């Protein structure tokens, strides 16, 4: 048995247990701080292991480490590192300094790595549950805060429902095809006469379950409440790493086992993508809370990403991966700025609180401007390049309507992004924010730098995404 293919996951899980034991037994006063730094170290070490690991199918066909999984894993690990770093300072200030916090983030990351490496519907489900369960707990982590508890409970109940839908779909697929392994399913379905209605219904249920996890319309209802209620670093984490993993999983499930049924599921994905883009553009306009606005923004972004999947081609998958890279770094930087919105020790999260930021903190205002322009998809920022690749792939596949809807939705969403910029530069100044800790400045700065100059040398990322997409189709 080729067990070495999962060495990064095994190493990360074992390091997680070590950190947990250290946290339990340590008598140090700043255990949270030490455990967070150890978690960052563990994630970086795992990334090195991912880079040096040998690919292949292992564990009786349950686990597949290919170039696609490697790309997604590196992105997930990068997002998780940023998530842990931005959480350190926030938790210190908000009485959440408990060492379980980074450990739960670490196990969520293990779950995500299993998700992107899944080559069987069973390992897909186990990875998804490990990831989701950790994040349910993280969302409710501020347990004395009513909104946080509500967010955790809401996410848990709806997430359990989505898991139920997913499992029901998996059972239908298994019942009508006789296998849960991706390669076996692809083999069975290469003869389109085997695609019975029951199997299609199963696929629809699986799509519904996965659409919930990436908060695509019409399974998005939980997103604004959970994003608003959860502690901000958890929101930052939820908006980046799990989204990458869930999208990567979604793409793999659609392309690898069900790729031969493209004609059957393409319409479904087109519909979900359109609805997500339009809702993300219009529902965000009326928001006054920046975390809720980011929730609608992420719904919209998931729509754009699904445009690439709807194309169903190698170019489409490449576009999805490039979009994910730009999305992760822009969002991580954006949330670092949101976490830095603190006055006299209290976190503020209204958009109006950003009024006149240009005068009190030009650096943060400049970084936010870069992120917002990028999310709106203006050239030359990285968000434009991501959108360029997904819409280009959709055009090549003949999905002209979808691409046009996408561009229009993007224009509408530019309105509310640019409104924030207007608040920062032209509105009456609010009192200055508290001094930013270095960790947030570093994440925001790195994100802004990446977003700003990505257009100068996108070649390495594009090449890696190309190789990853080829690995998926190969």
């Amino acid at each position: 048995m080729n067990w070495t293919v999962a060495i990064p996951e095994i190493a990360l899980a074992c390091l997680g247990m070590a950190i947990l034991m250290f946290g339990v037994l340590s008598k140090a006063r700043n255990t949270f701080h030490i455990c967070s730094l150890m978690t960052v170290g563990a994630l970086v070490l795992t990334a090195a292991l991912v880079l040096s690991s040998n690919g292949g199918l292992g564990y009786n066909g349950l686990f597949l480490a290919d170039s696609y999984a490697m790309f997604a894993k590196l992105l997930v690990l990068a997002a998780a590192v940023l998530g842990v770093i931005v959480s350190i300072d926030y938790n210190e200030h908000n009485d959440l300094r408990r060492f379980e916090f980074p450990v739960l983030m670490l196990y969520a990351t293990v779950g995500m790595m299993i998700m992107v490496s899944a080559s069987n519907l069973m390992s897909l489900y186990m990875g998804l549950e490990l990831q989701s369960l950790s994040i349910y707990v993280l969302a409710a982590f501020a347990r004395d805060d009513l909104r946080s508890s509500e967010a955790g409970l809401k996410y848990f109940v709806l997430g359990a429902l989505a898991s139920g839908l997913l499992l029901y779909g998996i059972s239908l697929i298994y019942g009508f095809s006789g296998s849960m392994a991706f390669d076996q399913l692809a083999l069975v379905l290469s003869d389109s006469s085997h695609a019975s209605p029951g199997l299609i219904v199963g696929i629809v249920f699986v799509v519904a379950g996965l659409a919930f996890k990436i908060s695509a319309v019409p399974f998005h209802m939980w997103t604004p409440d959970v994003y608003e209620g959860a502690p901000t670093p958890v929101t930052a984490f939820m908006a980046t790493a799990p989204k990458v993993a869930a999208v990567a999983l979604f793409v793999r499930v659609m392309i690898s086992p069900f790729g031969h049924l493209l004609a059957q599921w393409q319409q479904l994905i087109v519909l979900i993508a359109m609805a997500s883009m339009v809702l993300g553009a219009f529902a965000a306009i009326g928001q006054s809370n920046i975390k809720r606005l980011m929730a609608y923004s992420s719904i919209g972004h998931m729509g754009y990403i699904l445009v690439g999947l709807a194309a169903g081609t190698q170019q489409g998958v490449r576009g999805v991966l490039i979009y994910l890279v730009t999305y992760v770094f822009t969002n991580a930087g954006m949330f670092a700025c949101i976490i830095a919105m603190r006055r006299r020790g209290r976190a503020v999260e209204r958009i109006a609180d950003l009024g006149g930021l240009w005068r009190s903190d030009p650096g943060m205002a400049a970084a936010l401007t870069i992120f917002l322009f990028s999310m709106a998809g203006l050239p030359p920022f990285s968000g434009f390049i991501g959108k360029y690749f997904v819409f280009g792939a959709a055009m090549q596949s003949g999905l002209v309507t979808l691409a046009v809807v996408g561009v229009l939705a993007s224009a509408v969403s530019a309105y509310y992004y640019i409104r924030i910029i207007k608040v920062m530069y032209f509105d009456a100044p609010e009192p200055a924010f508290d001094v930013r800790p270095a960790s947030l400045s570093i994440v925001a700065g790195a994100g802004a730098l990446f977003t700003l100059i990505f257009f100068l040398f996108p070649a390495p990322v594009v090449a890696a995404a190309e190789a990853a997409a080829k690995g998926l189709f190969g």
Partner: protein
Amino acid sequence: MIATAAFYVFAAILIASAAMVVSARNPVHAVLFLILAFFNAAALFLLLGAEFLAMILVIVYVGAVAVLFLFVVMMLDINFAEMREGFQRYLPVGAAIGVVLLVELAAVLTGWKFAPGIATTRAAPMSALTNTAQLGRLIYTDYIFLFQVSGLVLLVAMIGAIVLTLRDRRPSATISRRQNIAVQIARTSADTMVMMDVPTRGPTMAHIKPLVTEPGEELADPIDTHAHHGGH
């Protein structure tokens, strides 16, 4: 012959008790019927030769899940009659969904073709290994990866339960009700009681008075009552 008869007996009781679970008025009775249903399902597993599943069903579902249900039902004191009030209102929608599902089920069942020879795979194949050993072999070889990931899921669940509920970490927490035996034993009467001499007209008495009184709580003055009693 006996196996067939046993199957029908257990199946009939199973269906009847399942119907009682949803129709019983008293929720405690409903849970007890649920337990009966679990036992009958376990018996059906036994008839199929799946003794491990039968035992797991009894241990996990009856031993843990159903007993928890019973506790919850008894402790929460939910008024189920009130919860059923919306029943009439939502009946059309529910009935419509039910009919759709029934039609779908019928469509599936009428189009169902059994593969030749499938009947032999219905029960566990006879082998030298018991099915506990067979399951063990599968879980620890082919599915070791999933088994270990399940372990991680349970670990996360455990961490989550502790993080979200355990409260005695904080020194200032007053919610924690943990018993500290050393403090209890070290407590003396001097910590909690004061002996006072109270001047009275009658014979001198030592009155025991609590050291700490709630603000606003008025102590009945013992002297007055005594005097009052004496007056009569």
